[in-house]
């Protein structure tokens, strides 16, 4: 038992000695440059742009979703523009019918 304890103590001492000795390990002088040279060129893009592109990609991942969404958005903006124009016409006619008619006439001639 005593012999076994001695062996264990020797092992512990040796490990401690090796721990202390290997503490002096240092990388090569050019190690940092080597690491920097090894970085892939494709990953040099800023994260913000890659993130936004990945978000866009995620949204538009399926054209079955992306195309109807785009058509829907275009139709919605057309309808909104038309409604806004109608509202302008109606509001103008209510506030100053004569002036509004003149402006509408000017707008039509510009087209």
């Amino acid at each position, binding site marked *: 038992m005593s012999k*076994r304890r001695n*062996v*264990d103590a*020797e*092992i*512990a001492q*040796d*490990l*401690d*000695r*090796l*721990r202390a*000795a*290997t*503490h*002096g*390990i*240092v*990388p*090569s*002088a*050019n*190690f*940092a440059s*080597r*690491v*920097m040279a*090894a*970085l*892939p060129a494709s*990953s*040099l*893009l*800023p*994260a*913000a742009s*890659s*993130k936004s592109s990945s978000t866009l990609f995620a949204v538009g991942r399926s054209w079955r979703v992306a195309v109807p969404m785009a058509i829907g958005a275009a139709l919605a903006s057309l309808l909104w523009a038309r409604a806004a124009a109608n509202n302008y016409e109606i509001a103008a006619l209510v506030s100053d019918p004569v002036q509004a008619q003149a402006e509408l006439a000017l707008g039509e001639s510009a087209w």
Partner: protein
Amino acid sequence: MRMDVYEVEDDLQPLVARIAQGDQAAFETLVHATSARLVRLSSRIVGDLSAAEDVVQESYVKAYQAMMSGKFDGRAKVQTWLYRIVTNGSIDWLRRGQVAGRSLVPGVGKSATGAEAVSPEGEATMSPFATAEAAVAAVEARAALAELTRWLNQLPEEQRVALVLSALEGQSNREIAALLGCSEGAVEQRLVRARTTLRKLREQS
């Protein structure tokens, strides 16, 4: 005795956000601040400085890609995260059974003092050592690493890694369990087996 797991006390977390924005200088700062610690860790596990540098380089590339793609959000301490990547990379290296390409014998590939080394292309490179004492310590460290490797080569990989993390890196069983993804009981068992193996070998010799 409980050693600090990480020598770098500076807060490196602000670098993470800068790296994610593509700031290479920030990544280089991170490499300078952590590489000595990580190369030492890997050297102790794989038993070879050249192989350790390869493992750490590969780990940095993986870490950089993860930061750039937003996979590392900076909630964990960046040193802890790198330590884990390098530990796993070193274990992978052992499993692949790669053969070291450079001699472990001190003085081979370096001048006696390490003051100047000559690359295979014949170009002189600046010494990483600030003083002659540091150069001597590095040479002694390489010799100790060779001795350590002779010891550890007699252990199965799982026991070897557990022993290095415990006896040389000063990690607790709990920390080792977290690093290796196993239970604390499994770590304890590996350490007991490693010490038993070493005891038997010593008794035989």
